[in-house]
């Protein structure tokens, strides 16, 4: 059925939808979302994900473009390994190429050749850099090719300590704690290097109040820096671990931080300091069927990202800015696709056809639903 749906802040768009008139009357079209940090299981990890399930998940989640991490198999650290699929369905697959060879933090990649071959950003796939001198060189070098460098800010030594936020929840549950200082040190270092090199930096996976504060200050200072958090971290915090079940769904890295941190992230997104990413890291069921510490960290996120952010923010414009507008600015990208939203719908992450069972938000009823993409 052809129908006309109003575009948020614009004219109407003609879409082909099979919904009741009641639902149709409340739909709105928004710029399709762009995931700033997607860690796909494709290529290389078929039990996690295939190209088809990735694209189906993205469409279901309203994503018109995914910035895919180089942490696939083979690692995207030479131009020959760049993803060959540029788009499938309504979804563009963009590549962040590795910053250092093998994501090893030692040697620089051929950033120029990678950019020429189509890489739109650089990233070491969330692996923190132990050697700050190498990181400084990488930023100096990347700057001249005008590529945004994605960094997950973390002190590399503290990063491998613990599996839960180092505070009340970890102490109560007897889980080894990872301190917020891990991230705070990483953010402070990234800001210092951004200031020193002038490279454009995007900080991923932010989870602490201090990170939001430091980022806000740096942006006011005019540094070319931006940041994002995972949509799920706007809803979940360490207290969700506290049911004694040691549920591997909540085994995430970096770990869920405190309720106060979560509130700071929500405030940061509302204030336009932070963008929001799906932080899609699908895991096969057998990777989660373990004791908490041994379960593979990560969670699917594409299908729940919009509803998670909308539920936490309660504001469609702020949600669209964080998931669609800011990501376009951060990676300098034009994506014309629209996502069709039912703000009064509900999303149940667990019910998504069993595709992404390891979504940390599974079992929750989230506010808002994506009906699909419109090209």
């Amino acid at each position, binding site marked *: 059925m052809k129908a006309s749906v109003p575009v948020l802040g614009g004219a109407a768009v003609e879409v082909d939808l099979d919904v009741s008139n009641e639902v149709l009357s409340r739909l709105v079209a928004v710029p399709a979302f762009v995931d700033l940090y997607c860690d796909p299981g494709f290529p290389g990890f078929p039990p996690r994900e295939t190209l088809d399930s990735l694209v189906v998940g993205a469409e279901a989640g309203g994503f018109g473009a995914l910035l895919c991490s180089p942490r696939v198999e083979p690692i995207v650290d030479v131009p020959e390994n760049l993803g060959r699929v540029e788009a499938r369905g309504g979804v563009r697959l963009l590549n962040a190429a590795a910053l250092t060879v093998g994501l090893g933090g030692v040697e620089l990649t051929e950033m120029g050749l990678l950019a020429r071959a189509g890489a739109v950003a650089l990233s070491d796939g969330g692996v923190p850099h132990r050697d700050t001198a190498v990181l400084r060189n990488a930023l100096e070098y990347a700057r001249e090719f005008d590529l945004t460098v994605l960094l997950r800010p973390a002190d590399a030594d503290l990063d491998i300590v613990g599996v839960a936020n180092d505070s009340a929840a970890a*102490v109560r*549950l*007897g889980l*080894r704690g990872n301190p917020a200082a891990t991230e705070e040190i990483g953010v402070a270092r990234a800001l210092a290097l951004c200031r020193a090199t002038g490279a454009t930096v995007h900080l991923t996976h932010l989870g602490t109040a201090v990170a939001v504060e430091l980022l806000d200050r740096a942006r006011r200072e005019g540094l070319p820096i931006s940041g994002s958090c995972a949509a799920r971290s706007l809803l979940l915090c360490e207290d969700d671990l506290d049911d004694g*079940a*040691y549920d591997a769904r909540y085994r995430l890295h970096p770990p869920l931080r405190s309720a106060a941190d979560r509130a700071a992230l929500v405030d940061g997104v509302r204030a336009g300091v932070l963008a929001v990413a799906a932080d899609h890291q699908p895991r096969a069921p057998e990777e989660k*069927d*373990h*004791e908490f510490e041994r379960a593979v960290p990560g969670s699917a996120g594409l299908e729940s990202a919009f509803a998670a952010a909308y539920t936490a923010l309660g504001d469609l414009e702020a949600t669209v800015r964080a998931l669609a507008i800011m990501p376009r600015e951060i990676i300098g990208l034009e994506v014309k696709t629209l996502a069709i939203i039912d703000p009064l719908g509900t999303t149940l992450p667990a019910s998504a056809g069993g595709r992404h069972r390891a979504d940390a938000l599974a079992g929750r009823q989230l506010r808002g639903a994506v009906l699909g993409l419109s090209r």
Partner: protein
Amino acid sequence: MERKDLLGLRGMPRAEIEALISTAARMRQVGERRIKKVPTLRGRLVVSLFFENSTRTRTSFELAAKRLSADTLSFNVSTSSTAKGETLMDTARNIHAMQPDCIVIRHASAGAPALLARSFPFSVINAGDGINEHPSQALLDMLTMSDHWGALDGRTVAIVGDVQHSRVARSNIFGLATMGARVVVAGPGTMCRRELAALPVTRRHTIDEVVGEADAIMMLRIQRERLGKAMLPSAREYAAFYGLDLDRLQRARPEVLVMHPGPINRGVEIGAEVADGGRSVILDQVTNGIAVRMALLYHLLGREGPVDEG
């Protein structure tokens, strides 16, 4: 007590702890008889599944099961067989196929017993999971204290040493708080961190700050592999600030109980003359361990069977 598993003392109601302690006191009598066996769990299968080395806890559970006439089976899963790739869940599925009634598990990861408990119908007893809990140890400690004091309400228990990484300390902290006792902890900054404020404890630094106010002093074992690392400079430094020697014991209350979960490091956390002295109840703890584990198996598995036969 409607309970399938014993995973920890966190959140366990006072009435259940009291029931276990009082059953354990009765079970102790079985060990004092010439024939140390009752038929309560005849035909039931208790499997011990230890992923970490343990002699005393494993033998204590096995002896407890045998005194209740259960069949016992012991899996010693060395770290190498985990390295061969079998997951905990697969190991447990294999054992489940042998139709056990109860699995006693020790594992390096917090929550491993919880994972089995929610995945399988058999009872699960946590015999130590990572740095989380070791509930049977805390129950035997509380039985030992209650032998001397009766009720634990209003008593002060000092726990000294590596509180941060001690599942014995944590189970005691949860259990003692429920039973109305006050827990004071002391130890090096790396082992007694500020985050412990999330638990119902008062935090101090050196042993001298707690020795005078305690009705019981529980010394934790210092793991020698931690010495000389960034966690702890040396054994003599430890003994100087956190060890319980005779001189310090003389500043304690005259009726104080000296406790230790064992195995002890003489001359490091506890002086030999203190460990062997009149205030030490360390060997009572071992005897009580068997009784407490019998009580646990009885409550989880065997309440329909008779206890006083034999």
